[in-house]
């Protein structure tokens, strides 16, 4: 019942915050969000799951109730955690709490609705990572979109309507594609009478789908694989389905960006891992080269786009495209270090991109601009915030002893010796060039904004950032260093859950 408790606290908290007066909403939401954060950390410390959730592993905090029947199919409330989802749940709860604190300064209208929506997102995100029945999972998956749509559309920047609708429609159309494909697959699988993901995975590995509507089973599996890959690719996002992301980020308020980059993007890679890379090993092998190519293009092209930007938030947004490319590379390597590193990178990138968006937000709060050309020498006025920004930037560049290095290194190592992927060393070396470009655009941006003589185009007085702006960044930085120094804290449980996926391969 632990997972239900997590979701319930966040949901009830959302309702309470919704009706609370604006003036106390921020503090109230923070207090409420501490409950799931603390609870999930306790669950993490007491985690006793073994193996992979979909592949006959022992789940932690499992609960399953029959919910409803549609002809011969049963839909159940089925949740549980394994070594892949547990760290992501903790990432969600911790990041939500920190995002709430980071909203105190910038959000100054309709606070109760804003914080209520953040808690509502939190509840659904936990659901996405914990749900093991396709229907339940899909409800949470879709329900995440609504509050995010509103956070961007109501509290966003000047072009918020365009960005919000683009985000919503684009990801929703993708979801529709994925949903349709998956339902077709379930109908074609023999002897599957539930939407429970473990059962579907077992059926897929046992022999895959039978012919449906005159389409041969193996062809159907390939079609479904491609359709689902495209559906999730939008969410990740990979090039060329990424254009909604910078628009959404630029218009979104800081805390929404933190959650968007920190957790929402991981929904895409998480789903890829859970569905495509767990249920379709043959298709993974068959499409390994094009997928690896997409990964490399995402890394390099995303980084090049970041290099061309002059808006700090766009820089960080495009760099997310680049970083998620590494995740895809790790997944397609299909080795323990590759897939494990990709999962680690999801958590790590969640923390680091969260930190970067917060830091950019703090700068924006003080200067009311995000344009690189509008400012310089901010380190003179806000030394602590800039110090953390610099540390976060180096984390993004994959500085050793910070979590980003571990994620990237294990992905590179895992993909270099991949048995599945042809030309794996060449793909790896090509993707690795991202670590040079990322240093280029981040250092270039830092040089122009925070260093040099102090100058600001807008006429705001810039002073030290308030403690509650800086404190969440400190927490994130601490976590980033902690995971960089002691990655086994989560890597051990991750590899335990990854091993069954890659099966005989190592």
């Amino acid at each position, binding site marked *: 019942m632990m997972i239900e408790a997590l979701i319930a606290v966040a949901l009830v908290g959302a309702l309470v915050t919704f009706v609370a007066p604006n003036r106390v909403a921020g503090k109230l939401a923070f207090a409420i969000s501490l409950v799931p954060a603390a609870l999930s950390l306790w669950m993490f410390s007491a985690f006793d799951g073994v193996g992979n959730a979909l592949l006959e592993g022992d789940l932690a905090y499992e609960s399953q109730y029959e*919910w*409803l*029947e*549609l002809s011969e199919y049963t*839909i159940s409330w089925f949740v549980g955690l394994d070594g892949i989802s547990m760290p992501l749940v903790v990432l969600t709860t911790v990041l939500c709490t920190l995002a709430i604190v980071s909203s105190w300064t910038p959000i100054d209208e309709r606070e109760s609705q804003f914080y209520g929506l953040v808690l509502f997102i939190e509840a659904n995100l936990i659901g996405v990572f914990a749900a093991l029945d396709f229907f339940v999972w899909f*409800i949470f998956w879709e329900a995440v979109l*609504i509050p995010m*749509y*509103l956070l961007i*559309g*109501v509290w966003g920047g000047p072009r*918020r*309507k365009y960005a*919000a609708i*683009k985000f919503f*429609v*684009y990801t929703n159309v993708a979801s529709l594609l994925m949903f349709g494909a998956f339902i077709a697959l379930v109908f074609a699988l023999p002897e599957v009478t539930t939407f429970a993901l473990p059962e579907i995975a077992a059926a897929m590995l046992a022999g895959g789908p039978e012919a449906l509507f005159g389409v041969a089973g193996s062809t159907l599996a390939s079609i479904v694989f491609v359709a689902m890959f495209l559906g999730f690719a939008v969410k990740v996002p990979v090039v060329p389905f990424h*254009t*909604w992301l910078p628009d959404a980020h630029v218009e979104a308020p800081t805390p929404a960006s933190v959650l968007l980059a920190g957790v929402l993007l991981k929904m895409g890679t998480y789903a890829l891992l859970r569905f495509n890379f767990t249920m379709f090993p043959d298709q993974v092998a068959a499409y390994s080269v094009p997928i690896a190519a997409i990964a490399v293009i995402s890394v390099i092209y995303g980084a*090049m*786009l970041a*290099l*061309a*930007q002059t808006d700090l938030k766009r820089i960080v947004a495009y760099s997310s495209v680049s970083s998620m490319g590494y995740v895809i590379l790790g997944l397609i390597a299909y*080795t*323990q*270090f590759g897939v494990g590193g990709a999962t680690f990178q999801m958590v790590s990138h969640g923390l680091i991109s969260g930190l970067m968006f917060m830091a950019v937000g703090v700068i924006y709060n003080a200067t009311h601009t995000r344009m690189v050309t509008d400012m310089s020498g901010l*380190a003179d006025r806000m030394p602590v915030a800039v110090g953390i920004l610099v540390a976060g930037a180096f984390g993004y*560049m994959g*500085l*050793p002893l910070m979590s980003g*290095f*571990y994620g990237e*290194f*294990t992905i*590179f*190592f*895992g993909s*270099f*010796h991949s*048995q599945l992927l042809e030309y794996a*060393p060449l793909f*790896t070396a090509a993707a690795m060039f991202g*670590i*040079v470009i990322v*240093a280029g655009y981040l*250092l270039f941006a*830092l*040089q122009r904004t*925070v*260093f*040099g*003589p102090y100058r600001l185009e807008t006429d705001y007085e810039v002073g030290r950032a308030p403690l509650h702006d800086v404190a969440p960044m400190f927490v994130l930085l601490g976590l980033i260093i902690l995971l960089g120094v002691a*990655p*086994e804290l989560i*890597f051990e449980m991750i*590899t335990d859950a990854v*091993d069954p996926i890659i099966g005989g*391969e*190592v």
Partner: protein
Amino acid sequence: MEGAFSYAPAIAAFPLVAFVVALAFGKYMPKKGALAGILATAGSLLLSVVMLVAVASGEVYHGTIYEWAVGDALTEVGADGIEFTFGILIDPLSALMLVIVSLVAFLVHVFSLGYMNGEGETGLPRYYAGLGLFTFSMLSFVLADNLLMAFMFFELVGLCSFLLIGFWFRTRSAPSAAKKAFLVTRFGDYFFLIGVVAIASTFGTLQFAGEESFVAAAETAIADGTTLFGFGPETWVTITGLLVLGGVIGKSAQFPLHTWLPDAMEGPTTVSALIHAATMVAAGVYLVARMFGYYAQSPTALSIIAFVGGFTALFAATMGVVKDDIKQVLAYSTISQYGYMMLGMGVGGYVAGVFHLMNHAFFKALLFLGAGSVIVLMHHEQDMWKMGGLKDKAPVTYWTFLAGALALAGIVPFSGFWSKDEVLYDALIVGLEQPVILAAYAMGLLAVFFTGFYTFRMVFLTFHGEPRTDTAENPHSVGWSIKFPLVVLGALALLAGVANLAPVAKLTGMDITYLEFWLDGEYGYVEGLTYHDYHELVAFEEGYISSETVTMLLGAGLSLGLAVAGAVTAHVLYNVPEPTRHTAKLGGAYDVLRSNYYQDEYQVWLAEGLTLPLARAADRFDQTVIDGVVNGVSTASLFGGDRVKRIQTGIVTNYAALLVAGFIALLLVLGFIGGWFL
């Protein structure tokens, strides 16, 4: 871990503590964190000496202290698991390097008291925190027992250089130089990281020493003729070795990745001393020495190291000839001197390379701190043409600086002579059999003349002649914290050569090549990491002109003669009461040298003339084509959905209400079907 070695982690931990203390409490402390740093580096120095003594008494240590990550990986040679660990390897090489690094770091901290604290500098806690982190990273790098740990601290060294070169961040030039230093070395580290990943994927281990090391695994693979990633084993060792060498070329500022180093003079002079003598730049060559057994198996890789080294030595020395800024001259001399070390390593002269690394650490730290002292004397003037006549006004600075200059120029009996001569001798005897190496040797030899010239040009312009400005007439005074490090290093610049008087030993037959004994397992040693182990691996033939003694005397005479000739030329041109530039004599060459062979221009062009426009083009493509398709699709579908227009009020809250209502309706329907409410 037993005995003295149980204190080894503290060598690195002390400066880390100093970093934290200076960062968190520095501004409340009397000397803003300096004392914490001095105390910590003194502790590191003491413990490093303890390690040296332990090794001298025959002990070594190799052990893992922390498991970073463990996992399964099917590697090319068939191992099925890998451990990424942090471990400590204390053998003659690392023990020696620990003492060098901690000694220089300690002296730099002491010097900083006089150099940085004196002038109302703000940001001192940040400065001392940076020094502490720098020392910590470098000492951890030296202690590392495996390639990944070495890479990690190699990168952290790069971070620290960024922070310290950019210390004066309110200027425009310092942040730019800091960025350049990090970016250029990162470009090298890109290849290094591929090398690390490739070696791990090939052999399933990254250990430097022992049966389980990648060096031993490579030997086995070459002996067995195992195909590695589609290549023959020797070719693959060459490829991976050269990839790692990318990092070395970046950090040790070898051609073509040397361009960051002259710019790095934007940092405080103390930082330059630390970077050039004992930390960042030294890290590259130390890495070659640390995994020398790997390079020794690839004659191709060695030849490339030697050639790059010889070329860089000459290339940088010629640029040093026309610089006016005292720190710039020293910067180019650093590049050039590390070229010698690479040359030495590349011809299999492991002892010679390490010997020069050690001597250079002392005399280059001395010269930079001496230059720092001059800069204090001159009220922060660095142009040598505005100095002159400081000899009598600041005798301690002059005499110690002169000792460093004699060592740099390679004048007998100063330390630099002995090690540079040994490098050149090793290159010569291999060169007599290998034309490529002979070319490298010739470049190294020619560079000796230029080194003698620019070194003494610098000495004469700074200290001799008549004062050319009022500041030079009435210099600022310097305190004990500046003089003390100079005296210590001055003595070392004079005497450190005693460690390995190879020519004397050969002539007299005395057993006085202590450093060679040290690195060859006469004291404590680790199996496979000794000089004769390496010597057996290196496949180079050696040749002599008539006999070994004649070859040696000829080589020594030639290099000493060239060094003296360079110094004398400088004396004739610049040791006059009122020297002139004499640059017209160089003709068109002057512009080329002055512009550093246009190396910066083409690298800046690569970044700003090629990459940036490419990025902008990609951005335009992204905005117009890719996003255009997305928007086009949505416009087309919206056009089709014209009738839905009525609910498109454009008010976001209306959309929200519709969404929430729809969602609730969906849940209700599902609930009814499922019989939830019955």
